């Protein structure tokens, strides 16, 4: 496994975002290192999707700063994020049902030879990519529509890797998946980490989070509500931080040491 580097791949510093009168995000801090899976959790309306969209360039931030590999960057549109090396796999998978797996993997990034699509090269690379990720699908030449939900999700994730990103954002990759399919996707998330990618995983499923994430960042009502090390934190602690049910020890301790740092 790749060692967590000193400089985070992506760091959010005091990011705020407003939609009219609604304050969607307030002073949100987040750091993701290479080879690390950070789960982003929170209740509905906690601001997870908004936060992801600010990183992906769908919504520009109002205040705060985004740092990419230590340098301050501005992400104004999806293209900026892609150029930096941020790939986002949205909840609705954004695959074309009528195109086959190879065509979907390379959609928008087709390989050409003298102006003509190089199907052989694309198919070869697709097979290699799917093989290194140990993704099992019936054939790379069947339409996406014939794949199961889990297979589609793995294809969508594989697709995000074609552009060789450094950070992959997965928006609820296991929602709506069965047990076996969820296992496939979680395996894949681990393989992304092994490849040294930084992964942001949005999930409602605590079991998934406990299984693959290194750290879990909790949002509550558009603010940070603690970042926990998954291995040393119990599920109850995480859930209470999500719901804000108790003013729990971890957040208190955090607040104290944060003040001590200042």
């Amino acid at each position, binding site marked *: 496994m790749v060692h967590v580097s000193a400089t985070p791949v992506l760091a959010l510093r005091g990011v705020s975002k407003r939609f009219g009168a609604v304050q969607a995000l307030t002073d949100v801090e987040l750091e993701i290192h290479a080879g690390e899976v950070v789960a982003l959790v929170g209740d509905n309306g906690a601001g997870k999707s908004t936060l992801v969209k600010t990183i992906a360039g769908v919504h520009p931030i109002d205040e705060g700063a985004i740092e990419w590999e230590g340098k301050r960057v501005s992400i104004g549109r999806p293209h900026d994020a892609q150029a930096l090396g941020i790939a986002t796999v949205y909840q609705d998978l*954004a695959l074309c049902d009528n195109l086959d797996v190879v*065509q979907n993997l390379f959609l928008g990034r087709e390989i050409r030879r003298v102006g*003509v699509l190089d199907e052989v090269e694309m*198919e*070869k690379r697709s097979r290699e990519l799917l093989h290194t990720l140990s993704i099992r699908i019936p054939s790379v030449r069947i339409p996406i*529509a014939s794949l199961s939900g889990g297979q589609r999700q793995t294809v969508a994730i594989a697709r995000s890797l074609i552009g060789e990103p450094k950070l992959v954002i997965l928006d609820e990759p296991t929602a709506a998946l069965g047990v076996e399919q969820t296992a496939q996707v979680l395996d894949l998330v*681990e393989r992304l980490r092994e490849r040294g990618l930084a992964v942001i995983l949005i999930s409602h499923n605590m079991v998934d989070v406990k299984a693959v994430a290194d750290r879990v960042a909790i949002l509550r009502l558009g603010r940070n509500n603690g970042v926990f*090390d998954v291995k040393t934190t119990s599920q109850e602690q995480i859930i209470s931080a999500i719901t804000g049910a108790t003013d729990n020890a971890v957040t208190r301790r955090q*607040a104290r040491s944060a003040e001590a740092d200042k």
Partner: protein
Amino acid sequence: MSTDNPDLTKAAPPAATEDEVAAPPPAADAIVAVDPRLLVREQGLAGYLTEFRRRVRSGDLGSMPVIAALVIIWGVFQGLNSTFLSANNLSTIAFNVVGVGMIAVGIVFVLLLGEIDLSVSYVSGLAGAVFAVLSVNHGVPQGLALVLGILTGTAIGALQGFFFAKVGVPAFVVTLAGFLAWNGAMLWVLGKNGTINLQSGGLLYNLYNYTFADVAFAYGLALIAVLLYLGSSLWEANRRRKAGVPSRPMLDIGIKTAALAIVAFVAAWVLNQAEGLPLCLLLFLLVVVGFDLMLRRTTYGRQIFAVGGGIEAARRAGINVAWIRISVFGLAGTMAAVGGMFLAGQVNSAQSTQGGGNTLMNAIAAAVIGGTSLFGGRGKTWSALLGALVIVSIQQGMYILNLNTAIQYMITGAVLLAAVVVDSVSRRTQKNSGRA
């Protein structure tokens, strides 16, 4: 604040997850173990037949229904009137296919987006009228008038595409408005008389009527087509083998090449029995093949399929959806104008009735009957050729049987309905077997 906390963040020891990562069994050998769900293709004839049966069962019928329909239609008419399959009659069908087929090629593109263009009939009429007025009334050179007439169609298509893609008016409504407006424009351009006769022996007349009388021409082209197909198939299969990806079995290449050879040489033989290969048919075939390659082998073609398959997915892949839509409607307008030129050449005049009647119905029906899905994302330019053959064969059969147009319309309507039923049912079957 929180992420700066050393206690918590630095406490994520990477090594601790090592066991977790190793826990799932190494998936490498899982690929070797044959998953019963995998579509493992057997080699040889058996595998080929299995694959074929699987595709038919899952509703992936391709061109089979339309070819079957063509065989039945030709058989029935031949049974009713033995002159139907004569060389002269088949040659007439070949001529008549071109105009409607050219328009249908444009319709195929629009259908691939899952949209419809109802204006093509009068766009074709208007283009013919523009050519006639420019070349006959204003003395513009015929070549230039031809280009301007076709560009009229391009501009109209792009304009309609703009209203659809940028303003967001449904394509159905935009092109329905166009259907009326371009009819009016055509009547206005033609002026009081309503008919402009073209130069005898002029450009459009020759484009439509010229035939390559030399028998070697048709046979030579058939031979070139077969060799090109065989050569490119073998080259592709070889490249795939070298790259280590599955390639088409030789048997498949052999069967398809043989089928192409039979069709090409029989067609050449029949046409040579009559007047020889018509220039207009050759142009139409070049258009079909050219656009087929564009759809399957270029980025632009891939983007058209992507937009037809899922607009949101296409947009997120960085495809300029508005540009694809506008350009496809522009292309449909262009092809309508091209078709209009051949229709004008057929009667060697521009008339106020041009583009009226069943022109629109025939063009759309040809595309759909040929196997292009009304639901977008599935289709080939070849459906324009096959569909036009069906439509024109029915018309011609009715004509030689002396049946009136009332019956002809009813039968064409029934065939169109049958085609849409096949499309819908095959789509449902594909859905059920997860292949829609």
